[in-house]
Structures are given as C-alpha cells and as structure tokens.
C-alpha cells in the first residue's frame, strides 16, 4: 500500500500578516509557500472574507481581492477576536472568534492543495510575535474545529523557532554563538544565543542585548545601526549573524555592513526565519518526540525538570515528567506508576543551569489501605503558566485484586 503523504507545516500567525512553510524531504529544509502563484512573497494579510449568501471563505490575498469585487463580510482583528473569545454576526449567524480563526486556517491551508488539512498535515507548529496562553488556546480550539488532534498541534515562541532553525544548520554556524538582529522600520533589537558546554546536557541561552531607535533618514539610520551593533558585539566575533524583519536594506547600510562582516563571516537576512524554525519543530515532532540533546533556556522554556525517582525492573530509574528546556506549551505527561510501601508522591525538582535539586511531597490522603505494590497511580502533569505545573493523581487500584477508588488528588508546583 502506498504511504499517504503528510506535511510538517510551520505557520507564522500575527495580527497583521501570516506565512506558511512545509518541510521538504528532498531539500531537507523548510520551504516557505508563496502567497500567490509565481510570487516569491510568502507573507499574506491575516484577513478573512466570507462571500454573501454562500459558505465560501477566503483568506489572505484572496480575502483582500474578493472584498473589493464581491458582496460579503470582511473579518477584522481576527487574532484579537479569537484570543478574547468575542463574536461577530455574519449573514445572520453569530460566529465565535475561534470559529472565525478556524475558517481562516481552513482557507489559508488550502495552499497545501487539500481541503482536508487535518489529514494532510502530520504536525503543524504555529508561532507568532506574542505567544501566550490566550494565543495557544485560540490556535488549539480553531485547529480542533478543523479536525486536528491535540498531538498534531504545536505552539512555539519566536526565540525557540530561532534556536531550532540555527541548530538545524551546520555547527560552524552556531559553535561560537549567534547574533540575532530584528530590524523594523523604527528600531533594531539584538539578542545573543550562546551555548554553554561545561555541564551536560549543554545549555543554550538567549539573552537580549538591547534595542536602538533607527531614524528614517538613510545616513542617520546607518550611523545609529552601526553604533548599536558595535556596542552589542564589543568586538567579539560570532559564528553567524541573522537579520530578521524588513527594516534592513543594503542600500543604506554602507557603514553597518562592514561592521557586521567584521563580527561574522556568515550573515543571513530574511523575513522567514521564525517560520522556517516553526516548520523544523513540526518536522522534528513528526519524526519522533521532539527530544533535544540540549537544554534551551528560552522565553517559554521550562526552567526546571520534574521527575520521580523510581525502580524499573529492580534497577533505579528516573521517571521524567517535565524536562528543563522543553517548550511549556508542549510540556506535559500522562503516565502510571505502582506505589511501593508509601502513600505519597515524592517529586524531584532540578533547576537549570545551577542543577539544584529539591524534593516536593504530595500526600495521597484517603488512599485505600492496600499492601505494597498493589496500587497503580495515574499521573497527569501539565503547565498552567510559565512557572507552574498542575499535577493530577488518580487511584487506579490494582485490577480486580484491589478495585480502583478513582479518588483524585490535585496539586500545583512552582518550578522555580
């Protein structure tokens, strides 16, 4: 039987524009999709249009076109509506923000050449400028409405996308660190990504170096940019420099470009760095579990690991529930363990990079009295915000020998 082809998809979703990329097995890279046939432009407006009297929805450039030539309704502030849960009346029917975002995803993902995106996509990783709980919830709900299963949906912040993109490149592009410059029309923001290899696993940190205003006048802009870069690099060289955004131009960077070239021989400029990173995350999860050999200390990464010291076939084993460096939107575990001669759970919290360990005890009050090794506990762990993990334990009993009481215990642990 032929293997059904599925895509690992990256989706950059912002309130003004969006972009889509798919992973190419042939190129072994994320390929941004053009927003219209024959174009090199990948960005399209985050706009949605519904044709009057029919159930046809259009997204992006098509939405912009049809709103001028057809009768219908345009949806503005799509992302804000989905995040806030507000509604809009269209053709006599009230749509929730999540339903509208679902229609937007449906129409936009037609670029993959299919109407049934949920079946055609192995994993989709959605990123955006501002990734928070409301964003993640809105994306999850919208994609669920299209038939996506929870495990197909991934959410990542820009810095993680950058990390994944850079570390998908050859080592000479990251061994001495990378400088990321986000250049808009008004300013430039610098971040440095450094790998610390003293302890294992290696630890990768993103640090913001600063922000500088950029005047519109070309020579003033060049001067301001070069001064800022000189200050941030401090004469240090990097393995690579990435220029992101649309604010950088060779035509004005007369003084800036030589300074950049002095700091690194590898300089990349583009507008789809995060998009490609998101796509690579989707591919990594599609291929396995997304496990990483390094700990990435990003804005939405876990700052500590959570585990339980257990025994596996008589040998000491560590049951890892949350892993430091893991994306908090993807972090979480569901597992089972068998209690020895105890009626509590003892968690080990290991913070990074200092490696400090502390234990946290969760008493299972009211657990039926049973012999050792005759109680199976179902354990579910998930992050509620950047630093708190919700733990949910259930008494599953021990088969017919000791029926489950289904008693439940809840606790919230602070990871830092």
């Amino acid at each position, binding site marked *: 039987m032929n293997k059904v082809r599925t895509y690992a998809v990256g989706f950059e979703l912002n309130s003004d524009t969006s972009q889509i990329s798919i992973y190419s097995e042939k190129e072994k890279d994320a390929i941004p999709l053009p927003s219209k046939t024959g174009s090199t432009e990948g960005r399209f407006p985050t706009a949605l249009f519904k044709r009057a009297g029919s159930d046809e929805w259009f997204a992006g450039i098509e939405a912009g076109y049809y709103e001028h030539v057809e009768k219908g309704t345009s949806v503005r502030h799509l992302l804000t509506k989905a995040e806030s849960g507000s509604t809009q009346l269209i053709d006599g029917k009230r749509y929730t923000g999540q339903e509208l975002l679902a229609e937007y995803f449906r129409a936009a993902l037609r670029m993959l050449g299919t109407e049934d995106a949920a079946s055609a996509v192995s994993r989709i990783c959605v990123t955006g400028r501002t990734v928070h709980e409301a964003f993640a919830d809105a994306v999850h709900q919208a994609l669920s409405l299209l038939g996506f299963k929870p495990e197909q949906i991934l959410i990542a912040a820009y810095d993680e996308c950058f990390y994944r993109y850079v570390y998908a490149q050859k080592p000479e592009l990251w061994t001495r660190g990378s400088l990321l410059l986000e250049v808009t029309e008004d300013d430039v923001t610098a971040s440095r990504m450094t790998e610390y290899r003293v302890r294992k696993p290696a630890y990768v940190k993103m640090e913001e170096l600063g922000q500088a205003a950029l005047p519109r006048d070309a020579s003033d802009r060049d001067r301001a940019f070069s001064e800022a870069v000189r200050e941030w690099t401090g004469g240090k060289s990097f393995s690579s420099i990435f220029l992101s955004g649309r604010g950088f131009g060779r035509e004005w960077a007369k003084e800036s470009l030589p300074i950049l070239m002095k700091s690194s021989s590898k300089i990349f400029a583009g507008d789809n760095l995060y998009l490609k990173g998101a796509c690579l995350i989707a591919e990594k999860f599609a291929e396995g579990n997304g496990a990483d050999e390094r700990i990435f200390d990003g804005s939405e990464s876990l700052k500590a690991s959570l585990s339980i010291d*257990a025994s596996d076939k008589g040998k000491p084993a560590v049951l890892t529930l949350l892993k430091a460096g893991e994306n908090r939107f993807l972090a979480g575990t569901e597992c*089972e363990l068998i209690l020895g001669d105890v009626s509590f759970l003892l968690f080990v919290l290991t913070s990074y990079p200092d490696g400090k360990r502390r234990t946290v005890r969760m008493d299972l009050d009211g657990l039926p009295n049973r012999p050792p090794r005759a109680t199976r506990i179902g354990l579910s762990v998930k992050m509620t915000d950047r630093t708190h993990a919700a733990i949910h334990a259930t008494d599953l009993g021990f088969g017919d*020998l000791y029926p489950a009481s289904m008693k439940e215990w809840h606790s919230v642990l602070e990871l830092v």
Partner: protein
Amino acid sequence: MAYYELSRTGRTTRPYYLSSVGLNLYSVEELLFFLHRHPALIDEDIRSEKLLGWLAEEFGLTHVTYAMRRGLTKDGDTTLLILPLMREMSYLTPGELNSYLKKLQTLDHASKEVRLKMQAEDLYSMRRYGAAEDLSREALETAPLSERGFRASMLTIEAASRMQLLMWEEAADLFREAYELHPTAERKLRLLLALRLTKPRERYEELAEEIGADDEQLKMVREKIEEAYAADLPDPDHPEELLEKYCTLYHEESGR
C-alpha cells in the same frame, strides 16, 4: 523496596482469568503480585500453556515464556515455571526471592490438608469467603482427628468465612466448636465476639460466664464492638444503613 515502580509492560484489555479464585488479571504486575502473595493458590490455571500464550501475546514476553515452559513438563516444578518471570521483571529482591522459593518448596512437600489450609487462608484474605469455607471443610475432612490444633484452625477459618457471609448463628457455633476442641485466648476472644453479635445481652453474659471470660476479655469485646460500630455506622440513628451495606457486601462477595 523502592517507593515507586514503573510499569513498562502496561495493562491489557484482554485479561487472563483464574477460575479457582474468580479473578481477572490485567497486567504482569498483577500476576506477579498474585504469585508472590498467594503461592498456595498456584494451580492448573497458572501451570498452563494458555498463560504463557497470554504473556507472549499481550506483553511481548516470548523470550521469558521459552524458559518458563520447562516448568510445564511432567516433572517440571512450580519454581521452574515462575522463576524466569520473577527474574525477568526483578519483582523481588534476592532475599525476598529466596524466602519465596523456600515457601514454594515447602508447599510442594506439604500434605494435602496443609495445602488446603493455606489455600483456604489465602482465599479468605482475598475475600473469596464461599470458596474459603468449602476448602476449610475439605481440609477438616482430610485431617486426622488427633490434629486438634489444626482442626480448630480450620474450624476458625470456616467460622470466619460464614461470619462474612452473614451466617452468624452457624459461625458462632463453629467458633465454639473450635474453642472447645483446642482452647486458646485468641479463640476465646473470637467466640465471645461472635456471641456478643448473635445473642441477646443476657444470654451472651450467661454464655460468657460459662466459658470463663474475665473482665479484661469482656472489656476487649466491648471495645471491638464499639470500634466496628464507629467505623461502620457513622450515624447511630440510622442502623438500616449498616444493614444495607452488609447486604451489598454479601451479594458482592458471595455471588449469591
């Protein structure tokens, strides 16, 4: 013993049924627990090619079942059957494993009535009261009349099983028979408790005097009864709740 153990083999939706105890097993851990806790109940359901098939198909333990199969031959003993699985899963510490193997050997060499007694005790501990009662009776019929202590123990298990099946009058008679056959302080206390539960207060006091209960023993009976009431009957104004609870338990445990 570790605080926690991981279950790498998981649970199956196709359980293995042990007919003698009316028990479905859903995991290797449940099987190991049963084998470790109730060696006397290892019977033809365990010494079975069907069990090996279940372990291989449901948990991928084919390599272990090859070794276990040696215990299924005509001369094979239970140790040969169980040891490979215990070792593969490292279920017991070396010390625990040694004492467990000794227990298996003792069972192999035990007389029929001793095996029946151990089975009856295990069934009672598993709340299989009907089966425990039947095996106690069979052991009584097999045991020599001279073994008064052994016979009294069997009568006690039979009585306790009947008590759990709400056959309180019969249970009290059996407790009395056990005490008279081989009197001990513990048997006297059990008899007093049974009498207190089944007889009117005045009759109970007469019988207690008759068997020579002292004040300390009567006090212990009173405390045990109070404890049982406190645990079972949170609201003394509604005794029907206790009856309802006992009836539910009776139907669950006896299957009648």
